[in-house]
């Protein structure tokens, strides 16, 4: 019986991890559909930023209440996972509380886990209330309707259930130890672990028979570990992927001042050619030189974006802090930087699924532009960087908006007409208004 349990555990564990690995490989493959971008410079600065923003959650606490709760849930999540280590060892070797030899240190650990589990539970309940009962602007956006809202709630339910199982398991275990049951209790009668929370539950189990108690303990134990493995595999389908990706995402985020936008190199080369009086525009390409495919400017689909932008999309946790700060969104425009990220991820998944089915990407008659992100959204952006500043995990929705505008303007000449006029003016007379460049100093002589 014991051996069967051990084998069953191993099978579940290996299957859970294998499936998870498969999903992560899929994320990596899809991100690699994007263009290469070099973000390997300044590793020291990048690590420091990652430590501060991802590990230290420095931007989360800008909203003190939700930031504080998030830190509790986050710390709880990480620390309680030390307990998973023991659960795995016990599961594989059929032992009971293998780490108990640590003595008082062990008691301290288990006690801490229990308190954290309780705090996480409370935090998650408050999160649920904030999402479902109160009216918080960033949780009311259109893009959250349907799946994203359910996803957010599923995560919260998952966490609640896991914490309840953990505490139940401990409560039953404590009762079994108190009853001196073989395999659970030590011969000395010394209780392994300390149970500041579950001690209040275990009296409920007092009258139960030994076998019932064991069933309760085993059920909670199994459901807890299976739940964790399920949760791990749920990540890929969920905004909860941020718990892993936030780290590389912050590491790879832009380090320069926010106002500095990238200069397109392909354009630089063309401009150089145009400005260079010695360049021969009709020059034949050298013999044997590869025919150059003219580069597509800007982005109309996910493959035109760079890998960091695609990683951004998978990392987005749909918190809406960006959207809540967006001047366009606040004034009722369709633009929502969160939606830009969600659309990018959805389209990337769609493209990824085509590759899963057919082996490589085949045109499906859809693209990120128009099928997901509307022009009206793109043209509402003031490039103010408020979204970039607000994002707690280093996502840059503005860079995607800009790349899509580049496509619209440079590939399609599809700028709104007033804006197109302003650009014609710049081209012809060096100012966005129709004034003559020769009049540029007239102000000095005006009274």
């Amino acid at each position, binding site marked *: 019986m014991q051996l069967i349990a051990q084998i069953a555990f191993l099978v579940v564990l290996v299957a859970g991890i294998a499936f998870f690995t498969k999903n992560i490989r899929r994320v990596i493959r899809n991100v690699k559909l994007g263009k290469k971008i070099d973000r390997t410079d300044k590793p020291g600065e990048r690590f420091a930023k990652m430590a501060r923003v991802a590990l230290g959650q420095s931007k989360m606490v800008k909203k003190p209440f939700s930031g504080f709760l998030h830190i509790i849930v986050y710390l709880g999540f990480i620390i309680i996972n030390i307990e998973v280590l023991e659960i795995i060892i016990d599961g594989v070797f059929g032992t009971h509380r293998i780490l108990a030899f640590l003595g008082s240190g062990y008691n301290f650990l288990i006690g801490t886990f229990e308190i954290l589990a309780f705090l996480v539970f409370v935090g998650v309940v408050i999160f649920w209330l904030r999402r479902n009962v109160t009216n918080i602007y960033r949780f009311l956006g259109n893009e959250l309707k349907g799946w994203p809202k359910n996803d957010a709630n599923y995560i919260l339910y998952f966490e609640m259930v896991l914490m309840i199982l953990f505490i139940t398991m401990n409560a039953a275990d404590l009762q079994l130890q108190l009853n001196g049951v073989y395999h659970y209790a030590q011969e000395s009668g010394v209780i392994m672990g300390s149970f500041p929370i579950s001690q209040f539950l275990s009296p409920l189990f007092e009258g139960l028979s030994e076998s019932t108690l064991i069933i309760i303990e085993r059920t909670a134990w199994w459901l807890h570990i299976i739940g964790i493995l399920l949760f791990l595999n749920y990540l890929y389908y969920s905004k909860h992927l941020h718990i892993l990706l936030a780290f590389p995402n912050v590491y790879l985020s832009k380090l320069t001042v926010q106002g500095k936008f990238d200069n397109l190199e392909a354009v630089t080369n063309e401009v150089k050619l145009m400005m260079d009086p010695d360049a021969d525009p009709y020059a034949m390409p050298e013999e044997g030189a590869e025919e150059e495919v003219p580069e597509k400017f800007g982005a109309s689909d996910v493959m035109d974006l760079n890998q960091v932008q695609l990683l951004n999309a998978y990392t987005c946790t749909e918190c809406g802090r960006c959207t809540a700060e967006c001047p366009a969104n606040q004034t*009722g425009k369709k633009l929502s930087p969160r939606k830009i990220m969600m659309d990018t991820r959805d389209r990337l998944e769609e493209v990824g699924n085509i590759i899963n089915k057919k082996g490589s990407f085949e045109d499906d008659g859809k693209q990120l532009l128009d099928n997901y992100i509307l022009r009206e959204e793109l043209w*509402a952006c*003031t490039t*103010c960087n408020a979204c970039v500043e607000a994002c707690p995990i280093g996502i840059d929705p503005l860079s995607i908006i800009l790349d899509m505008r580049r496509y619209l303007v440079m590939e399609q000449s599809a700028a709104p007409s007033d804006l197109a006029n302003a650009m014609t003016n*710049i081209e012809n007379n060096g100012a966005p208004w129709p004034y003559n460049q020769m009049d540029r100093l007239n102000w000095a002589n005006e009274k």
Partner: protein
Amino acid sequence: MADAIKVPTMAEYMAQGKKPEVLFWVGCAGSFDDRAKRITKAFVKLLHEAKVDFAVLGTEESCTGDPAKRAGNEFLFQMQAATNIEVLNGYEIKKVVTACPHCFNTLKNEYPALGGDYEVIHHTTFLKSLLEEGRLKVEGGKFKGKRITFHDPCYLGRANNVYEAPRDLLRKLEVELIEMRKCKKNGLCCGAGGGQMFKEPEPGNKDVNIERTEQAMEVKPDIIAAGCPFCNTMMTDGVKNKNQEGNIEVMDVAEMIANAHDL
């Protein structure tokens, strides 16, 4: 006050074989927009007052390309950049000051990779350094005790982390500096950036400048101080829309200092 002000050009300096201490990049708004021209003139007066040896490019200046770039026209942006860099490098310019945060950001951050590497300073930072060097005196004068709120231009504040220079200058004017709910890193845009200045807003339920003006009105200011010609226009329109022209003025920090001096 009515005399035209003396504004030397780089071409004139070149002809005399001289180089100025700093180039004043006026920008399109500063050159052509009636409201912004008043800011330009106020700043020039301060430059004279502080005996700064400066010049402008005049008719050789052209749009930096900022609106084109943010609208997605990278090609036009880089054409503008190439032209301007040729002129600037031709004059061997080292230091540039400008009263427009958009010009400031573009010249400072996006020109270097294209061959235009200069020390670029926003006029509020420049005025502050003149003050520290003792070349310019800033005193309260008529603004003493007035309630002033500073609207952070996106391309000065969030984009380049310049928050304190304009505020330090305002403090020197002995005003009562009050912050809006959304300020500094969290400041709300005036609605002009990213090419919006030159187009109709997309459908929505309010204009961005109205939202920002309402935020400013919450703190009941006598003056909304700005550091950008576009913000200035947007906030001025917002104040008009709210029928507050009689109560709230919108002024550039440079104008306030010049005004306090009765220049």
